[in-house]
Each structure stands twice: as C-alpha cells, then as structure tokens.
C-alpha cells in the first residue's frame, strides 16, 4: 500500500534547491555575493594587503589616502583599509560564535522543552527567564574584570544571553504543532520521538530559526561593535567596533573615518536581513509545510493530451433531473511565476453538477482536483487564477466575477468542507464564534438567533453535547467532532452547492463512515449538489452519482459511477480500480500509480 499521508520533502533536496532558488532571486544573489566577498576578504586579508593592521605610525596620524593606503590612516596612524579587512575576521567570527552558541542552546532547549514538556520544560523555561532577567551588562563587565577583555569570551557569553530568543521562538512553534494531527499520526504510527522531531517538528521550526539566525547574527555583530564602541572591547585586535569608536572620537576631525566601518557594518546587517527575508519568501513559495504542497500541483507536463473518455448516462444519473447548478467548461488554471510566465496546472476541465447530484472528483496527488474545487469558489492560493474557460453557477459566470460578488455567493450558495478538520478551524476562537460569525454576515441573523441556529446545527450533525462544543476551542474536540463542526458550518447558510475536499481522509476509519453517512443524509435533506473530491474509490462508490477521474490536471474519464466501475476504459482508471480489488482494502486507498508520477513528490 502506498502511503499518501503528507510526507515532507527530503531535507537535503530542499536545502540544495533552496540555495539554488535563492541565487535565482536578484536580492538573494546580491546578499550572498556580498557576504561571500566579505568572508573571502576577511579570510584572505593577508593576501589583499601587505600592511600590518596594528602598525602604528606617529607620522601618519589621521593621514589622508595615499599610494598603497586607499582609505588613509586612523588616529594612531594605522592603515584603515588593512584594519577594515582584518576587522572582518574578528567581527564576523565573533558574531558567528555568539550565533552558534545561542542557536545550539536555544534550539535544542526549545525543541526538547516544547516537545517533552514536563519538568524539562519548567527547568529550561526558568533558565530562559533567568537569562533574560540577568542584566547582560553586569555579566559582561564582571566576566571582563575576572577573565580579561577577550572578545571571544564576551561573544560566547553573549551567545548564551541571546539563546532565549531562539528558545522562545522554537518553543512557541513546537508547542503549536506538537498536538497537530500529523504529529499525532506520526506518533501513533510508531515513529520514534527522534524521528518525529527530526521529520515533522524541525521542518516547522526551520524557517523561523533561519530567519531568526540571520537577525541574531546581525544583532551579535552589532552588539560586538557596540561593546567595542563603548570601550569595553579588546583594543588589541581590530574590529569594526573599535574602528567605529576611533571614528566617533574623531568624527569632526576626520569624518570619513567613521564612514568605512559604518558602511561595512550597515551593509553586512542589511545583507543578512535581506538574505533572511528572501530565504523566508523562497521557503514559503516552495512550501515547507505539507499544506502548501497542494498549491503547486506539478502539471504542465502533459504527455496525454487526449479527450476525456466519456460514458453514457445510465438510468440512475438520468433520473437526476434537477437543474444544472454548476457548469464548468474548458476550465484552465494557471499560476503566475516569478519570471512573469504562467504555469498551467489544470487543463480544459469540463464538468456539470445538477441539484441533488453528487459528482466525485477522483485522482491522485497533484492531479488538479483540489485546484478545480478551489477555483469554483475563487479561493485559489496567491498567484492562482482562471486562465481559460467558464464556471457558470446558477446561470452566472464566476470565472471573472468581482470579489464582492463572490463574497455574496460563498457560504450562502456554495459551501466548502475542507480535508483536515483541525487546521481549518481558527484555534484562537471558540467553535461557536466561528459558526456564528458567518451566519450573522450571510443571513443577517442576530447574535442570539445565530447562536440558537448554531446549536441546532451542531446537534443536527450528531454532536452529543452541542452547548459544550459550542463553547469549546478547536483543540478541545476530536478530529471527527471537528469535521462535524465544519460540516455544520458549511451547511449553516443552506447552500445549493457543497464542495467537499476529501472530507474523511484525515479521520479514523470508524469516524469516516459516520461522516459519510452524515453527508449523505444532509445532501438528501437539503437537496444540494455536491462535488466530492477524493482519492478513495470506496467513498465514490458509497456516495457519488457521477465521477470524473483526473490525472495531470485533466479529466481523463468521466461518467456515471456504475459505468466507470463496470467498464472503465482508460488504462489509468483501470489500474486504479484493480488496485482496490487486489488490496481488498476497506479504505480503498489509491492504487499503485505509474512510476513517473511518484517522482513528482507532491500530493493533493
């Protein structure tokens, strides 16, 4: 059986591609080039200048630039250019030292404390509090008095002092995800704590930590300069801070003296910040989180551009004579790329949904079924838009409707049930308030009326104690309950069309059946049209009147559900079907897929 639960990209691949991607953005490239040059110039300082940075000369005090001394001399007659290069060694290394120490202590502590909680949590949080409450200046000065003015030592101490910045960040991220379903799932499936932290939790904290690192490095370098600037540094080694100090003292006599270290310092901090923010943007776009992967189906490559196999109506589908609610024709969806081009992920999709009819949309990861579903509500992720074709809902074109028009249609006319119940509820608000708010907006109900209706709906979807659930926060209910809540929310404004995006995938087998039963009941009662996105033929067989099989962003076969089951003609559909028969699996996991699709590494 193939595991279709969200998997992460192998970290190594992500990292390599991250650097490559960074280099492709102009800002990322510029920052990396600057920082690389800076590091190289520091490392190879002796090759770049023959002059000893500490060679003082009474004759050259504050001397102007001259042959071999492009930036002139400082207040002790030392060569500014040479000092600037050598200072890079100490300033950068000092900053790195602080960063590494802060990161090691903070990230490890944050991971362990956030993941294991318990006494380790209390102890390390207490230490973080201690570090934050202990005045850095007292510690630094005392250490300096006892151990002498060593920059390495002060930066090491500073690293320890800064570590709560990482600790708190990581701790917050870890506590936020440790109870997420996929972490739970990983735990249940027997992964060791080490692998869970490595695979799931590190992934979540990686981006913030990288961003924080660049900031901390900048801060550490700036603080190092600050200490030197205040005269608390080690005056025997050249650093940007000691140079700043010298420049500051002579700011009116030799104004240029302060310019060079300021410039290098400012550019370094800038490059680090820019790098961090570009890195973050790049990570966001590539999607470190499993969720994001859905947003970038790898379509576009289109080896089988052939018309969909269409089956004739059978007596059951023919009996559905409700008006056509939704008519999608030749729909294509594309995403704007950074280089200005558009990447098409859904091609020429056509389908119809009648009132009272359930239309299944089945396909494997990245086949474009979720994209199609979102495009109907016009809730595609950033950059996504309808590039071609029409979406006609109750006679009205939605493909290019204004946002205002769409807001009126959403909820009231078209409703949506997401795949993963937990992440689709806002953890900061009670379940009740998340149900009441749309009803007040869409139906114009008073708070009281909306509350009553919400309680009714909750009980209607089979929640045993509606009042308690109403007042609960999302993390206080089970996944099955949460999905019922979302279903209740979706039907709260009595929509005509319900889009259910894999409504049972994230749930236990026993709960799945109940939820499907609930959907069937509600669909009957409300006589809604339903688009059911799934990768599970069992669900299709259970609920659907009609089914369209998607692959590579196209519909390859469509028709009444029986026709597909009995006489699938497309080889892909056939292979999907034979897979369930072989496995004989109740959940009906998706069949083995042709090899080339597995390499795409993304799923829907």
């Amino acid at each position: 059986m193939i595991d279709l639960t969200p998997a992460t990209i192998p970290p190594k691949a992500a990292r390599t591609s991250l650097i490559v991607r960074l280099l492709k953005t102009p800002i990322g490239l510029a920052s990396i080039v600057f920082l690389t040059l800076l590091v190289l110039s520091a490392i190879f300082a002796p090759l770049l200048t023959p002059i000893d940075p500490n060679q003082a000369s009474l004759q050259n005090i504050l001397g102007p630039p001259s042959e071999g001394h492009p930036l002139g001399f400082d207040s002790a007659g030392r060569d500014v250019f040479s000092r600037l290069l050598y200072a890079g060694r100490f300033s950068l290394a000092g900053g790195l030292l602080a960063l590494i120490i802060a990161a090691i202590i903070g990230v490890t502590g944050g991971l362990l404390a956030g993941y294991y909680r318990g006494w380790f949590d209390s102890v390390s949080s207490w230490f973080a509090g201690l570090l934050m409450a202990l005045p850095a200046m007292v510690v630094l000065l005392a250490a300096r008095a006892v151990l002498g003015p060593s920059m390495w030592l002060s930066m090491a101490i500073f690293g320890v002092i800064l570590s709560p910045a990482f600790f708190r960040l990581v701790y917050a991220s870890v506590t936020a995800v440790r109870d997420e379903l996929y972490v739970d799932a990983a735990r249940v499936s027997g992964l060791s704590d080490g692998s869970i932290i490595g695979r799931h939790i590190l992934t979540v904290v990686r981006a913030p930590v990288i961003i924080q690192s660049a900031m901390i490095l900048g801060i550490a370098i700036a603080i190092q300069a600050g200490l030197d600037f205040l005269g608390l540094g080690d005056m025997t080694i050249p650093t940007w801070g000691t140079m700043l100090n010298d420049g500051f003292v002579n700011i009116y006599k030799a104004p240029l003296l302060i310019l060079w270290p300021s410039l290098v310092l400012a550019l370094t901090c800038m490059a680090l910040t820019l790098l961090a923010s570009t890195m973050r943007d790049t990570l966001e776009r590539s999607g470190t989180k499993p969720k994001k992967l859905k947003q970038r189906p790898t379509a576009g490559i289109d080896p089988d551009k052939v018309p969909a196999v269409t089956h004739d109506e059978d007596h059951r589908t023919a009996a559905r004579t409700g008006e056509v609610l939704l008519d999608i024709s030749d729909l294509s969806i594309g995403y704007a790329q950074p280089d200005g081009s558009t990447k098409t992920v859904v091609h020429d999709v056509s389908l119809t949904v009648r009132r009272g009819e359930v239309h299944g949309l089945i396909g494997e990861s990245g086949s474009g079924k979720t994209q199609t579903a979102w495009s109907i509500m016009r809730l595609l992720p950033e950059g996504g838009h309808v590039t071609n074709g029409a979406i006609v809902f109750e006679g009205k074109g939605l493909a290019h409707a204004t946002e205002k028009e769409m807001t009126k249609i959403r909820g009231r006319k078209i409703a949506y049930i997401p795949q993963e119940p937990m992440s689709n509820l806002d953890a900061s608000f009670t379940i009740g308030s998340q149900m009441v708010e749309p009803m007040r907006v869409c139906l114009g109900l008073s708070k009281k009326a909306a509350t009553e209706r919400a309680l009714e709906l909750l009980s209607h979807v089979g929640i045993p104690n509606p009042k308690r659930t109403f007042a609960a926060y999302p993390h206080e209910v089970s996944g099955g309950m949460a999905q019922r809540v979302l279903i209740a929310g979706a039907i709260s404004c009595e929509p005509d069309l319900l889009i259910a995006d894999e409504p049972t995938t994230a749930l236990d087998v026993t709960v799945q059946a109940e939820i499907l039963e609930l959907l069937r009941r509600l669909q009957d009662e409300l006589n809604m049209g339903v688009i059911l996105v799934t990768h599970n033929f069992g669900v299709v067989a259970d609920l659907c009147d009609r089914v369209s099989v998607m692959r590579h962003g196209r519909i390859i076969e469509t028709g009444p559900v029986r026709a597909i089951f009995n006489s699938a003609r497309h080889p892909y559909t056939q292979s999907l079907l034979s897979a369930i028969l072989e496995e004989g699996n109740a959940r009906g996991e998706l069949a083995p897929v042709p090899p080339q699709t597995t390499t795409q590494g993304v799923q829907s």
Partner: protein
Amino acid sequence: MFGFILRRLVSGVVLLLVISVLAYTLLYVGGGNIARRILGQSATEETVAQKTAELGLDQPIIVQYFDWLSRALTGDLGTSWFTGQPVTEGISSRLAVTLSIVIGATIITAIVSVILGVWAAVHGGWVDKVVQGISILGFAIPGFLIALGLVTFFALNLKWFKPTGYVPFAVSPTEWLASVTLPIIALSIGCIAGVTQQVRGSVVDALHRDYVRTLRSRGLSHNRVVYKHVLRNAGGPALAILAVQFVGLLGGAIIVEQIFAIPGLGQVAVIATSQGDIPMVMGLVVATAAIVVIVNLLIDLLQGWLNPKVRLA
C-alpha cells in the same frame, strides 16, 4: 488562572533570589578595588583602606551578601557609593525616565510595525518591497548614527528639540515630551525595522493557514478574515518579539541615553557596573529582573488570551 499567577510569582521570587546571588558574586569577583575608584587618584592608600572598611568590603562575601539581603528584605537597598543617593530613590527616578522612553518606543514600535507589517503582508507587491526596503535600512543603520543624525538635524539645525537632557514630567509635561521625543524615535527606528519583519512574517504565515480559506468560503470578506482572525493569530509571535524587544530596550537604551545625556537606567547601569557601585547595581539588577518577570507574566497572560491552546493551567 489564579494558581497560575501565584506559581509564576513564586518562581519569580526564587528567580530574583538566584539572580541577586549571581549578581552579587559577579560584582564581588569583578569588583576590583572599588574604594580606590570612589576616591580617585589623589587619595592615599590609608584613605582607601579606611573607605574599604567603611563600605564593608573587607568582609567575606557571604557576610556582605546577607547584610545586603537582610536590609533589602526590609526595603532598604542602601545608598549609592558614587552619588550618595538612596538606591530606591535613584532607581525609581531613573526607572521613570527609562520607562517613559522604552514604553514610548515600544508603543510606537508596536503601532508602526503592525501597520507596516500587516500592510506589507496583506497588500504584497510593491508595498511589500518598499516596506521591506525601509525596514532593512532601519535595521542596518547603527543606532547611534541614527541618534546622532536626529540630534544634528532636529535639535541643532531645526532647533525643534533640545539636543540633550531630560525634564521630569512633574516639572513640565510639554518639556518632558520634547525631551523624550528624539530618544524615543531614535530607539524606535531600529526596533520597528526588526518587528515589522516579524509581523509581516507571521501575518504571511497566518494568511496561508487553511482556516483562512475555510472562513472565506463561508462568505466572510477578505478584510474581515484578515483583521479579525489573521491578526489575532499573528499577534502571538508579534507579541513575543515585542516582549523580547522591550526587555532588550531596557538595557539597550544605553547608547541613546549616553548620546542624549538622559539619566536613565541604561546609563546608570553602565556607569555603576563599571565603577563597582554595588548597592546601585544590585538595586538595578533586582529592579530589572522584577520588571522582566512581570512583563513575561503579562505577556504569557496575553498569549493565553490570544492562543487558547496555551491555556494557563
């Protein structure tokens, strides 16, 4: 909730005790010849020895510490060895100064960086680029250069403000405002830059959450979702970074206080620590630690309100 606060306060008191021991040890070890520093170069060795005895510096550290502690527990933090001022008075007057700057800077930072960060994240495109550009510049320019630039331009050229000094609020509210404006701006600029980035980041992050789509699918407008749900969820991380900034500012106001000659905690912390003014430094340590404990407690309470998952049990 009450139990939570109580426990936090108790652990805070323990923290204070540990910190006071640590600080006293550090000061003792790093102190050197404090009496000589008080008396300067012209005093004879005998005078120095006499002063050392007068300050009790010839006692073993344990005796000195418990002497300090027993008096501190009765609220007597002693008098500064270098200005003769009672420590509690010195700290409270300086605390008011530093707090008026740091709170001012924190408020301005919070407001400006939330506006800029949310704007950049929600609007995207050129707004995002411009905001990022500005905030990166603000982050990258060393603080003292900003401070010097502000003094030169607004105080020396335009003469809108006085270049140095501090006027207590009680003496004249308007002059007080005038005397803290430039320092607050100088402190804020660097902070805004950093916090804006964080706010933008967490808003972008929150915007990509699944529940945003689901809420919008229920017919809520984009703005409503952003300003009610996204902001609240982005609030936690933003608040955390603000708290860190606030604590950092308490000590980080040093350079600004030096340049504007403002009698704040940062300034006195550097001077008192480097001199070895033990009563003053101990007072400062206890006061800042207490502030940090309280601020962290408040932040945690706020976090709990913002993110019900972190219920305070």
